[in-house]
């Protein structure tokens, strides 16, 4: 049933789209993380002038489809002559940068809440202790809150990265030929959706599996206290009865 030569041919074509998929993911996740950090700080600032704009941003980007966001950036912005004549236009004209911008803006909204959850998870007593030891607020934030918040949010954040890998597929709707774009092209050329789907699906599952493993390994490396303690050395002295 599965035509093996055709399948292998398809797979090698699809693998050609992996670098673009990874590029889009890395660029949008890393720039989105920076924006998310700023948004999370706005959320926990306690200042309504910062908190409410961040809330609205998160609400708007989480409540609308990524596709709409991509189209607004790619097609929508061309409606404004001011933008078309600005220095930003060489970027905004490119589907590549539009996809990166839209995906980054989108992931920032989801990640901001994850970061906020991480920041809030640090026990108040630890912060009080740091302050009592004479640490300034920024120092306590950097040394006490941030490392623990990062560790706390990492499992949820690895899910977000995987969601972003999946979201890069939408870049194919604005002409980019990453894995899904190539898959769509192959399907419309060959009318053999099953083979193409299996090939593309296998690629995405592999990428997502590797990301999940990488994040899990990082999590273990960052939580020394949760690792199993090394087995105590079995020496005859300790085995010997105390009151020999």
């Amino acid at each position, binding site marked *: 049933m599965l035509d093996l030569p055709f399948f292998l041919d398809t797979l090698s074509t699809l693998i050609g789209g992996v670098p673009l998929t990874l590029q889009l993911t890395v660029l949008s996740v890393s720039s989105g993380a920076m924006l998310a950090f700023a948004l999370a700080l706005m959320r926990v600032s306690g200042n309504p002038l910062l908190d409410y704009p961040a809330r609205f941003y998160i609400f708007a980007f989480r409540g609308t489809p990524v596709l709409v966001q991509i*189209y607004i950036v790619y097609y*929508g*912005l061309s409606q404004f002559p001011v933008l078309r004549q600005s220095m930003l236009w060489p970027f905004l004209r490119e589907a590549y940068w539009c996809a990166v911008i839209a995906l980054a803006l989108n992931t920032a909204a989801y990640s901001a809440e994850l970061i906020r959850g991480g920041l809030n998870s640090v026990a108040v007593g630890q912060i009080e202790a740091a302050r009592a030891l004479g640490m300034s607020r920024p120092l306590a934030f950097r040394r006490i809150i941030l490392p623990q918040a990062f560790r706390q949010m990492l499992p949820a954040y690895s899910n977000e990265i995987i969601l972003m890998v999946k979201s890069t597929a939408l870049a194919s709707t604005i002409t980019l030929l990453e894995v899904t774009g190539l898959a769509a092209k192959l399907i419309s050329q060959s009318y053999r959706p*099953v083979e193409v789907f299996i090939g593309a699906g296998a690629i995405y*599952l592999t990428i997502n599996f590797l990301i999940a493993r990488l994040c899990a390994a990082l999590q273990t490396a960052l939580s020394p206290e949760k690792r199993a303690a090394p087995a105590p050395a079995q020496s005859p002295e300790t085995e010997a009865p105390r009151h020999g």
Partner: protein
Amino acid sequence: MQYFQLMGFGPDGWGRDMLAAAGMTIGVSIVGFVAGVLFGCCGAAAKLSRFGSLRWTAEVYTTVFRGVPDLLVIYLFYFGSSSLITSVASMFGAQGFVGAPAFLTGALAIGVVSGAYQTQVFIGAVEALPRGEIEAARAYGMSSFLLFRRVVLPQAIRFAIPGVANVWQLVLKESALISVVGLIELMRQAQIGAGSTRQPFSFFLTAAALYLLITFVSGIGFQALEKRAMRGVRRPA
């Protein structure tokens, strides 16, 4: 001012079309969501079953459809069923490519994807039940079916509401992807309007606002539902 004329309900306003398309978005989302609930029930039942082969199949199902882009699944279903229909049609002497109905294939694709998420939600809800209750029901001599109907189901539904609400929001947003196979829902309608008026920003922003309205209102609805379902539950102070 210009914007309100464009999106208004006058002779050359697009308001009516956009609202109708929003209705289509809600319609296809509801069908996809209901299909997802059914797939989710089957998936959860398979994952909790005694048979290894069923558990394994369900595991593959949830891993694949949660790990692969939704767009790819929509392509699979649309082109897959189209080529199936085409080959059946050519057996009866029809010529050329026959497209599958976009509404059905789109809703089915969304149903299969959301069913994978729904499976996890249902599993979590069943596992949230205190073990003692099930043991107590068994001790009273309830059969498995009665136990499921009287003890597990009523409580699992309650625990599942927040997760189910998340999946609904996901389905609503995913429904935008069905526009790629030509169903005239909100996203496709916005593209049509953007193309014929050369005002893409106005149209896509309007579509975004309508999506936001739908997700916001349904979010409130689910919150009310959760509150009602939880009215008899004592919360730890």
